[in-house]
């Protein structure tokens, strides 16, 4: 080279020569457009520059801005904005300022890593150098020489050559000749003209930038030592501003420091300890070598090896810790070298970073471009090789259960969707196009690419369709020609009748759709053909729904046609398809288990979520909620219990799925609320509430059934119990089983084989209190002796002792003792169970033939059960009343058989006639003896009639009170008791006493004899009034015992029922906190009920009521007034009070437990329904007590 051999030395004139060269070179370059720097070496030679001087000149030439024209303003570089704090550090030292400036510089010139080299030169150099390296097969001596030659030719400064040569191996390093690096005039014009669209340039990697920054920072440091504080600061620059991982930043610092000859304090040991460490390292190395030899010699680590290694360690003076460390180091070395370890650390850091980023990915897929970005981050920010970054990413994706989608897969997916749309609709609507773009976006394709794909696919489809149409036209043409020819031939054949085959003509005429028979109907017309549906993914199916439906489609071949039917954009067809699909789908879900069941459930939930039309969702909701409750219908073998439960389960789960629009959620929930009579307003989890209420209702139905058909109930219970375990926790199911088993076992006579597992499960339950109900039933002897023996056997196995089936009381006591069942613990539950067993015998319905008397008796009995229910809900507080009520037993009321409907019996009528005759004869008789005889006859038949008319009674009393001889008086005195059951006689006597012409003593004697008691006389003057009062009181007291005139219900029975209900309501009042001494037994039931109403009102007033509740309470008060106004008897008054009390109770409990509100309202509504249908007030009285029993059943169960 000319300048290399310049004879002129680099002296004082050197700078002048350089300046002269620079001026000439600038002029030269300006005149040549800056595109031909190859002449510069020759020019340098002309100016007599040495190699060094030439280098300096080139530096000046390319680094100094030209004075003319003015340089364009330096554009604001975004990187500066990214690191503002870099320039605004707090009170930086000079060194810090220096160490920061280069980073800013490096970053501001980041568009080019080698600003000293012109881009075109750089590009040319890289291309040529790579060709050289390729020719020379790497960095051989010859290659280095050739590359350096090229670099010389292109005036590439020496100080950048190292970096530049290192970058040659990086395939990503692809410098391009920049078009915007133009001569000065071009730059100048850039001020007025909009800059051309900049081409994307590859920015230096953060690692590279950081290294560059580190070099500059280290150069600016006054000493060749990096202390720990500075080290931390430098690393922090890399992590916070360039996003490098800490591990990588530290590695890079160490690397640069080593390259530049700097010492990093943390990387060196203290000099004092250095020798010791070195000695220790040597000792350990010796130990490791010997240990490795021993292990190799022994063929592995065994006890002998360990002893030998321990001896060596002792010999070398190693502590046990050092020995173990050294040994583990051997192990590590066999696995990885030191470098691998570092990489591993980086990979771990990278993996952690990936986990953080990927956990937010919701669609289950990671697109290829995103993966590429992640890998690039791994390379750039974590310093990992690309293959290790990929490997780490794949492992992380697997751990996060994400799928990596390649661009090809995404394109294929979009293409298939376009194909489907073209097949179905023959075009892609704007709406579908938007959906496709959205889908493409989800799969990682940008809009432009996706649009291209769609267009090209549509075009291809159109071409295929045209080809298909042409092919079809050809085929059709050929077929038509054939048809014409055939038709002509047929006509020709017909024109020759003697030889024609008649069957041909017949068959032609009999062809269905023959034009002569059905004009205008051509089944071959394409318009009449139903659209052929194809099983294909619908645009609105999400990824997860698609996968679930595909799985269902593959699993359930029988459902494939029905599943295919939903693959239509036509809403009405889709609705019809749902209606057809869902019932068998539910049936299939019931029949399946595990993953197959789960995928069906997920599919239904997905349809509710993804279905675009609310109308279709309403149909799904209807299919899921129709017939899920039996309501008033009894349970039977035909009841599809499993399907009911599954439907409700899927409905409530669909409603609860996250992200479901609120309207759809409400739609499903309101349907469930309506069907099941529950409310989701409370805090109970909806799924648990739904299933619990449904199953509870089914158990109630079974309990009702068990009273009439225990064997069927047993069979159904076995099925229900098994099914219920799919929806409720096992302990809840067994708690329900526990009660029902007792009911059924007590009555069943058959079906033991089917029912035995349920009974066994209850008896073998871990919770011993579950045995209590069945023990109670067992103790009272089961209906079937065979069942009794079977249950005895199970119980015997449970306690491991023999039991006597014929002595259930003794056996039950033995079991209780053996199992240590504390009755006190289970008292509340026991009370409730006992109440349920009693209430289970009653239902709302009463036979049409039931008489008012029978209903009155049932009302009293239900009143008794109601007290048990009320006491059971009070728990311990109600225990005393519960026990005493149980002890007293139910009211013992029987129908009065003596009361018969219809007219008075003939015999009684005849007797009455005789009595009236005899009374008349007494009046007429003049002979005392004859009167006494007649009187005796009268006494003898007086018992044949209940009463006599007032005129006859008046005549008889007139005779009795008439003054007469003592003998006659004493004779009739003895017979007076015979008329004591005739109230009218006593009334007549009371009427006559004031004016009777007899001594008071005589009258007193007569009245005492008549009443069979001694009437107390206060004074002689008031004696007549006292006796009169006594008679009237006696009549009044005995009036209730009269037989019924209406012949419907005996007064005695009615009074007994009133007394029984009064007793029950007094107990209710005690349970509500009224002391027993404030509840006199003379109070009628309606009076006690009024007090209960007052208590309940006060309780409600003491609560914080909403406006609506206040209105409701006021309405109830008005209802009470109105019902009182309508009541025309104490019986109807009681009926009115029952209803008010129930409504108040329901209101308070509904406020306490909102989820019971709808069920409480059901009871009130049911009572209204019963009242509307009732034919008598006694029927209403019974219904009122029944409603209260139902109320305690509901609230007691929830308590």
């Amino acid at each position, binding site marked *: 080279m000319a300048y290399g051999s310049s004879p002129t030395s680099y002296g004082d004139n050197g700078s002048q020569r350089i300046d002269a060269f620079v001026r000439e070179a600038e002029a030269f370059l300006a005149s040549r457009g800056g595109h031909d720097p190859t002449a510069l070496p020759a020019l340098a030679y002309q100016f007599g520059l040495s190699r060094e001087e030439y280098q300096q000149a080139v530096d000046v030439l390319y680094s100094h801005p030209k004075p003319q024209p003015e340089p364009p303003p330096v554009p604001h570089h975004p990187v500066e904005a990214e690191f503002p704090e870099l320039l605004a550090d707090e009170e930086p030292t000079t060194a810090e300022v220096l160490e920061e400036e280069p980073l800013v510089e490096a970053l501001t010139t980041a568009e080019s890593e080698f600003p000293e080299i012109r881009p075109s030169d750089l590009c040319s150099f890289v291309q040529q150098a790579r060709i050289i390296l390729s020719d020379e097969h790497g960095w051989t001596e010859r290659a280095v020489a050739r590359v350096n030659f090229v670099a010389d030719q292109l005036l590439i400064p020496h100080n950048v050559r190292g970096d530049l040569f290192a970058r040659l191996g990086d395939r990503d390093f692809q410098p391009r000749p920049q078009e915007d690096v133009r001569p000065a005039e071009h730059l100048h014009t850039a001020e007025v003209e909009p800059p051309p669209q900049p081409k994307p340039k590859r920015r230096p990697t953060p690692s590279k930038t950081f290294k560059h920054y580190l070099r500059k920072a280290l150069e600016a440091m006054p000493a060749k030592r990096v202390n720990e504080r500075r080290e931390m600061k430098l690393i922090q620059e890399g992590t916070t501003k360039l996003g490098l991982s800490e591990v990588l930043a530290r590695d890079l610092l160490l690397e640069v420091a080593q390259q530049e000859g700097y010492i990093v304090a943390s990387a060196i040991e203290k000099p004092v300890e250095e020798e010791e460490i070195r000695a220790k390292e040597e000792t350990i190395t010796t130990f490791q070598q010997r240990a490795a030899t021993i292990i190799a010699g022994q063929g592995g680590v065994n006890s002998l090896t360990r002893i030998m290694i321990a001896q060596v360690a002792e010999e070398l003076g190693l502590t046990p810790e050092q020995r173990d460390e050294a040994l583990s180091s051997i192990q590590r070395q066999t696995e990885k070298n030191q470098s691998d370890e570092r990489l591993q650390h980086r990979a771990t850091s990278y993996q952690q970073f990936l986990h953080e980023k990927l956990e937010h990915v919701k669609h289950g897929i990671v697109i290829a471009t995103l993966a590429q970005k992640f890998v690039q981050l791994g390379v750039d920010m974590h310093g990992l090789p690309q293959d290790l970054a990929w490997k780490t990413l794949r492992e992380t994706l697997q751990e996060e259960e994400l799928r990596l989608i390649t661009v090809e897969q995404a394109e294929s997916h979009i293409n298939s969707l376009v194909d489907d749309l073209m097949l179905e609709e023959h075009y892609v609507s704007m709406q579908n196009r938007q959906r496709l773009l959205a889908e493409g976006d989800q799969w990682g394709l940008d809009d432009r690419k996706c649009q291209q794909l769609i267009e090209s696919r549509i075009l291809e489809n159109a071409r295929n369709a045209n080809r298909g149409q042409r092919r079809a036209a050809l085929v059709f043409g050929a077929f038509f020609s054939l048809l014409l020819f055939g038709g002509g031939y047929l006509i020709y054949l017909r024109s020759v009748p003697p030889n024609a085959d008649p069957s041909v003509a017949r068959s032609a005429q009999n062809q269905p759709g023959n034009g002569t028979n059905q004009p205008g109907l051509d089944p071959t017309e394409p318009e009449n053909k139903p659209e052929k549906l194809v099983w294909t993914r619908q645009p609105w199916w999400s990824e997860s729904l698609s996968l679930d439906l595909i799985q269902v489609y593959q699993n359930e071949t029988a459902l494939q046609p029905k599943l295919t039917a939903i693959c239509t954009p036509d809403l009405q067809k889709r609705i019809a398809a749902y209606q057809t699909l869902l019932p068998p789908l539910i049936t299939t879900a019931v029949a399946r288990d595990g993953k197959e069941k789960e995928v069906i459930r997920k599919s239904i939930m997905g349809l509710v979520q993804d279905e675009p039309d609310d109308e279709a969702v309403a149909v799904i909701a209807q299919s899921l909620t129709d017939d899920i409750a039996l309501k008033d219908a009894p349970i039977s073998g035909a009841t599809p219990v499993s399907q009911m439960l599954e439907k409700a389960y899927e409905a409530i789960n669909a409603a609860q799925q996250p992200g479901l629009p609120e309207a759809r959620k409400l739609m499903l929930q309101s349907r469930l609320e309506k069907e099941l009579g529950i409310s989701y307003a409370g805090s109970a989890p909806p799924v648990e509430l739904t299933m619990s209420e449904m199953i509870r209702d089914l158990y109630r139905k079974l309990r009702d059934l068990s009273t009439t058909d225990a064997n069927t109930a047993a069979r159904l219970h076995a099925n229900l119990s098994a099914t219920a375990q799919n929806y409720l926790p096992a302990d809840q199911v067994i708690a329900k089983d526990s009660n029902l088993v007792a009911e059924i076992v007590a009555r069943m006579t058959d079906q033991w084989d089917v029912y035995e597992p349920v009974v066994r499960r209850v008896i073998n339950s871990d919770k011993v209190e579950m045995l209590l109900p069945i023990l109670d039933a067992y103790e009272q002897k089961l209906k079937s002796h065979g069942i009794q023996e079977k249950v005895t056997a199970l119980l015997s196995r449970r306690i491991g002792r023999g039991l006597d089936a014929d002595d259930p009381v003794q056996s039950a006591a033995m079991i209780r003792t053996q199992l240590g069942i504390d009755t006190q613990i289970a008292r509340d539950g026991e009370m409730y169970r006992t109440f349920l067993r009693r209430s289970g015998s009653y239902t709302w319905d009463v036979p049409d033939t039931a008489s008012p008397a029978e209903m009155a008796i049932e009302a009293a009995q239900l009143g008794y059960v109601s007290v048990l229910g009320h006491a059971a809900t009070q728990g311990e507080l109600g225990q005393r009343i519960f026990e005493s009520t149980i002890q007293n037993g139910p009211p013992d009321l029987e129908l009065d058989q003596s009361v018969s409907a219809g007219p008075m019996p003939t015999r009684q009528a005849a007797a009455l006639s005789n009595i009236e005759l005899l009374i008349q004869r007494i009046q007429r008789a003049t002979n005392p003896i004859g009167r006494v005889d007649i009187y005796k006859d009268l006494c003898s038949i007086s018992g044949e009639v209940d009463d006599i008319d007032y005129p006859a009674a008046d005549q008889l009393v007139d005779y009795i009170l008439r003054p007469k001889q003592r003998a006659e008086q004493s004779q009739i005195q003895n017979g007076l008791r015979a008329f004591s059951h005739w109230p009218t006689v006593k009334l007549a006597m009371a009427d006559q006493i004031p004016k009777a012409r007899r001594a008071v003593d005589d009258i007193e004697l007569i009245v005492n004899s008549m009443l069979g008691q001694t009437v107390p006389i206060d004074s002689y003057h008031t004696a007549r009034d006292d006796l009169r*009062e006594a008679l009237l009181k006696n009549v009044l007291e005995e009036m209730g015992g009269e037989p019924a005139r209406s012949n419907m219900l005996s007064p005695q029975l009615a009074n007994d029922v009133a007394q029984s209900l009064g007793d029950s309501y007094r107990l209710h009042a005690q349970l509500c906190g009224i002391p027993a001494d404030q509840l006199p037994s003379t109070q009628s039931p309606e009076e006690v009920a009024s007090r209960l109403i007052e208590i309940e009102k006060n309780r409600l007033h003491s609560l914080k009521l909403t406006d609506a509740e206040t209105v409701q309470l006021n309405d109830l008060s008005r209802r009470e007034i109105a019902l009182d106004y309508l009541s*025309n008897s104490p019986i109807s008054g009681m009926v009115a009070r029952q209803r008010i009390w129930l409504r108040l109770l329901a209101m308070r409990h509904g406020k306490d437990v909102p989820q019971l509100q709808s069920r409480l309202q059901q009871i009130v509504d049911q009572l209204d329904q019963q009242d509307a249908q009732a*034919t008598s007030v006694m029927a209403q009285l019974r219904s009122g007590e029944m409603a209260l029993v139902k109320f305690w059943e509901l609230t007691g169960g929830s308590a």
Partner: protein
Amino acid sequence: MMRKRLLTPAMAAILLAMLFVLGTTSPIQAAVVYLKGRSEPLVGFVEFSDDQSITLRVTTEKGEELHRKFMRSEIDLLLQPVIPSRLASLSPDNPRAYREYAEELVEMKSDPEAVETATRLFIIAAHLSPKTEARSALLGLTPLVKDPQRVRQLRALAYMIDPKHDAKLLQGDSPSAKSGAAVDDKIREDTVSVLQMVRTEHRADAKQQLQREEIRDAIRSGTKQITPEECLEIIQGTCPGCGQGVIPPYMMQKLIAAELELISSKSPTEMPRQWGYFLDESFQKPLPVLTLDKATRFDPAKCIFRDGKWIEPSP
């Protein structure tokens, strides 16, 4: 008088319009026919009608159906108050129109269809607008109801539903006794005698005595067990379960208890109202349900008349 009221120009116009319709396509309708020279109308269903004559299907007391043809010249007045077209014009948006039409129909008690339709329209009006129409409609319905308990039911409903909750609607039945005031001994004895007369079926005497103001006052102030009105009801046989010569147990109990209270020197005791006294059929009737839909046999939700049927409005 009624006939005069019905012959208003408006009514005549309606009838003419109805007759015109009848001659064409009207379905069978109930009609009340006043024949010339007869005071009692004939009630039946129009089977045929033209300009000259009309054929009426009449149900006899024995339940037999007869077809009777009348020349129009024989007819003094033909009433067909229930007009389907007018029913069809009623809209839930105007509940008042239901009540007003029902009030027109109430006047025609002789026409069973009018009574039935009026009942339905009243209950629909109350249902459609409880706040504004319930009171008028329910009270307007009472003249059509014969059973006193049902009348009370309607009044109780009106009290409950009407926003004013007027307690006066429930008055007239509760006894207004003012027990405790001193009663002259002579009057007291006379009063006891009156009660005995009632009890012993000396009703004429008892009724005469009850016209004395001092006796009625003595009953009111001397006892809480019975009122003078109730005594009169027993005499007249109008109380529940009462009849000619029949005193139901609950009333007998009241009479005896009142007598006892009047003669007793001790403080009056509360008379237990034993259930056994209230077993008469009149007491065994069920307590009415206080809801509009149970007040009559008609479902008030079916408030639109279309094609001869009452239907519920579409939601």
